């Protein structure tokens, strides 16, 4: 049997052969959802010595956190390459405000399908390099981390619900996709209007 014959025979079993194209309005909705759900974080120059010191401090904290927030073995962490081990510190990047994303009204389904990590936490500190540390109080999805660090870039404003930025002592609900905080109404102060119910519906 020639290659062409073989390919023809295979093609006759193609399950997508009868798939009709998506209607244009579905296509534009998909496009809009992709472009508004996550704003790409621009590459950032790492300040290595400072980060190394911060990382060392975080390791100590994470060790303590591990003892306190040790996950039950049955609850395997799910998804993504954010962090590989339970109770590790997860690092996220908050997109800067420079990318003017068009935000649609947040949808629980969008949150459920896009977020690979979501948690509730309290800001315990913000260091000189604008790295925000949060103590996790509840993980909705993803790695059962005790601590999360968010690299809050200069210009992060009006992207989080509530005051628009992380402030010490306040409680937040944060969702992330592949290491980038989801904005546009998907992350913010825990008592921001509608945010908690969005999380309850999504997860």
């Amino acid at each position, binding site marked *: *049997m*020639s290659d062409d*014959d073989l390919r023809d025979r*295979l093609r006759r079993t193609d*399950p*997508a052969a009868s*798939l009709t194209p998506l209607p244009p309005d579905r296509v534009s909705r998909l496009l809009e959802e992709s472009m508004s759900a996550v704003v790409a974080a621009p590459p950032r120059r790492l300040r290595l010595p400072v980060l190394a010191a911060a990382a060392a401090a975080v390791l100590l904290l994470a060790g303590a956190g591990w003892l306190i927030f040790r996950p039950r073995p049955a609850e395997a962490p799910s998804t993504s390459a954010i962090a590989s081990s339970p109770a590790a510190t997860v690092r996220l990047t908050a997109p800067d405000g420079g*990318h003017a994303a068009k935000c649609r009204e947040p949808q629980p389904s969008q949150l459920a399908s896009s977020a690979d990590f979501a948690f509730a936490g309290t800001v315990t500190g913000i260091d000189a390099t604008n790295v925000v540390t949060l103590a996790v109080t509840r993980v909705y999805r993803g790695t059962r981390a005790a601590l999360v660090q968010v690299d809050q870039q200069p210009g992060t404003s009006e992207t989080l619900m509530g005051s628009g930025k992380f402030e010490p002592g306040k409680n937040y609900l944060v969702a992330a996709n592949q290491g980038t905080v989801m904005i546009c109404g998907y992350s913010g102060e825990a008592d921001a209007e509608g945010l908690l119910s969005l999380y309850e519906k999504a997860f």
Partner: protein
Amino acid sequence: MNSDDRRARFEALAPAVIEAVRRYLARRTDPATADDVLSETLLVCWRRLDEMPAEHLPWAYGVARLCLANAERAQRRQARLTARISAFLTPGPPPPGDAGVTTAMAALRGEDAEILRLWAWEDLAPARIAAVLGVTANAASIRLHRAKQKLRDELRKTGAVAGHEESTEGRRP
């Protein structure tokens, strides 16, 4: 590239990606998972638009492939194992007419069947298959050749190849 250019570029290339990836997923998983993974794949394409090569379809298939693998892993973890896995291994209801090919494909190793699907269903040449799978073009070419041979052998074994038996090009004793 400013954010307007970025949007314009995405809007220009995404519809073709959506159609192609939709088909790719419809061939490999159930409709609900396909929807989820399509959205996820688009998000990744949007986020990594700057890394997208000119040949964007194989790249997008590669992204979809990893997103699908993640989704399947998550589903396995959630113990929704049986139904989904079988949906994954025998993608969709096969159209009537060539049960022999379907049976022969099911008898192949997963990676052999997958490379044949990429070749016949996604209509990709070896160099593009290589881009999807993240292997060298040479490796893809060899694997494809072997997979075709294995499929021919399977078809012969099951007797589904009746009438084409004499054509054994490329076959060694």
